[in-house]
């Protein structure tokens, strides 16, 4: 009888804690919330969208969007109608327009600096915010099936019961760090085993924050597109045509097992094709930067501006060739 009462009391206390952000986090969310709308699929909360332009432009992950038109609920409780204006495949972001939007909330921008490892973040779900933690800005994501490389942020968070795919990831300053694109397997498998402590099963308890970490549930590792890609996407979405220009040379390559990237295929009509690049060539320098492997090459290409003409050095047999290559747009290459 007594142990049951204690268990109940613990559950009640921890339930309260689990939904609470720290005062700092709560204050940050209070500032951010007016710029966030909850996207609705019927009556279901499907995800969140962030205001990126005071004229009523919102960005959301494509997982949070259904069809070309949908409803959303503002922090004031008002229900608004949104229309899909554009989308960007590499980042999985969708641009939504809301004509009824009334200026007042602050438009969010992409983070101007890399977050620090260990920095506390907020992930906005349809059901509200959860805590997250920044890990690294130096992850390289290879997106299948396109085989494109995208620089990624790694974050981790305690997975809630509901889906987190497409959650908006924000700094406590109200800057947009990205949307949650992918999750890695859990770091710690141990908590999956039932742990009975003090007469009650902790796995049945709500998840709570412990000290500086979130435990006791395992942390889930997740990825958002990196700052360069995000800034490019938001800039493109805000442009008059809402177009995002990702750079591409139209080259598929592998590690040259030494120095450079060995070309496997050159897409017809691409900048590299026009410059005379062939399969078997080894690219070892791009725009003045050495290329150690195919990842280096992809990262360098991703940093270029569409339309620019850049030097590229390749080895063909025992010869060295200098080419000038026009950086194309990702969508232009077949």
């Amino acid at each position, binding site marked *: 009888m007594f142990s049951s009462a204690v268990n109940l009391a613990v559950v009640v206390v921890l339930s309260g804690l689990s939904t609470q952000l720290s005062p700092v986090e709560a204050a940050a969310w209070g500032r951010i919330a007016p710029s966030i709308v909850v996207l609705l699929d019927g009556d279901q909360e499907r995800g969140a969208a962030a205001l990126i332009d005071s004229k009523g432009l919102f960005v959301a992950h494509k997982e949070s969007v259904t069809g070309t038109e949908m409803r959303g609920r503002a922090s004031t409780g008002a229900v608004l109608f949104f229309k899909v204006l554009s989308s960007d495949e590499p980042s999985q972001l969708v641009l939504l327009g809301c004509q009824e939007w009334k200026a007042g909330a602050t438009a969010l921008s992409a983070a101007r600096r890399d977050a620090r490892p260990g920095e506390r973040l907020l992930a906005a779900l349809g059901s509200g915010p959860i805590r997250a933690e920044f890990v690294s800005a130096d992850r390289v994501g290879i997106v299948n099936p396109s085989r494109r490389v995208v620089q990624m942020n790694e974050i981790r968070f305690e997975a809630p019961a509901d889906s987190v795919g497409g959650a908006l990831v924000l700094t406590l300053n109200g800057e947009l760090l990205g949307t949650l694109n992918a999750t890695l397997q859990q770091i710690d498998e141990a908590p999956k085993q039932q742990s009975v402590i003090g007469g009650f099963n902790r796995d049945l308890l709500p998840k709570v924050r412990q000290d500086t970490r979130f435990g006791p549930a395992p942390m889930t590792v997740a990825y958002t597109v990196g700052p360069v890609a995000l800034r490019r996407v938001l800039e493109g979405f805000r442009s008059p045509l809402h177009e995002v220009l990702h750079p591409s040379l139209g080259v598929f390559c592998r590690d040259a097992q030494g120095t450079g990237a060995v070309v496997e295929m050159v897409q017809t009509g691409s900048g590299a094709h026009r410059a005379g690049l062939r399969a078997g060539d080894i690219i070892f320098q791009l725009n003045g930067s050495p290329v150690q492997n195919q990842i280096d090459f*992809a990262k360098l290409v991703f940093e270029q501006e569409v339309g620019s003409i850049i030097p590229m050095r390749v080895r063909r047999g025992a010869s060295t060739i200098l080419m000038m290559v026009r950086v194309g747009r990702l969508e232009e290459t077949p």
Partner: protein
Amino acid sequence: MNRRLDEEIARYAFGDVSAEQAARIERLAENDPELRATLKTYQAMRDGLRQMSPAMDHQLSSARLREEILRRGLEKSSRPFDLRWLIVPVAAAGAFVFGQFALRPPAVAPVLVASTSESAKAADPVEFQPWTSGDAASGVSKIVRDPNDAHESRILAVKSPPKRRTAKSSFVRSSVEVGKVAMKTATEPDALALGSAGPAPSGGAAAEMTLEPPSAFGAGAALSELTAPATRDTAAKESGIVVIQPVRDAATGAYRATEVASSSNVLIGS
């Protein structure tokens, strides 16, 4: 005959090899008189040892027999005036001399392709040749451009491989020495840097050559102008690389990501 084969034959003679090994040795012995002779020698030794041994058969362990056979078998026979070992070094020296003198190509200037101003390029009708050979007399080849895209994409310059090395680098005796030569050359000014694109350099600049790819000298000599330490952040090879699959994770609703330890064989689109 190498030592390994010699040991195998000894084991075969003693009956201490698998059926596969035995078949292999028999196959080799069919075509190799020397091997057959060796085999007979070992078999005779084995029979002799058995006959001479005062010990009972069960006391004559196979291990002891094998060791004895191997010991005797590996002893070098004394052959006075056997100069067969000279064949390989003499052949190598001959090939080297042949390569230095008989196959030396006529000296040609490196091929340099000059760049002209943008306006001139746009006006000139040109043919597209992704590869070009140079004019050996002048050391300057014609400009190579894409007729469809003269402004935007073209091969600007072609740097020919060295026809021969300098005297200093032609007698490299170790991969380390080769690496040093490569590094030294890498510090010299690059005549084909983009900023210097223009009329082809002459004289000393034209004589500048590119070393062959370091891979030609083996892994130990993997030093080139672009692989020197501190010239490039190599984090990509060391930091996490994740492959994102277009498959939803049932637990999180996000795409599934998997880490890869090495990206060396991963095909990348750029």
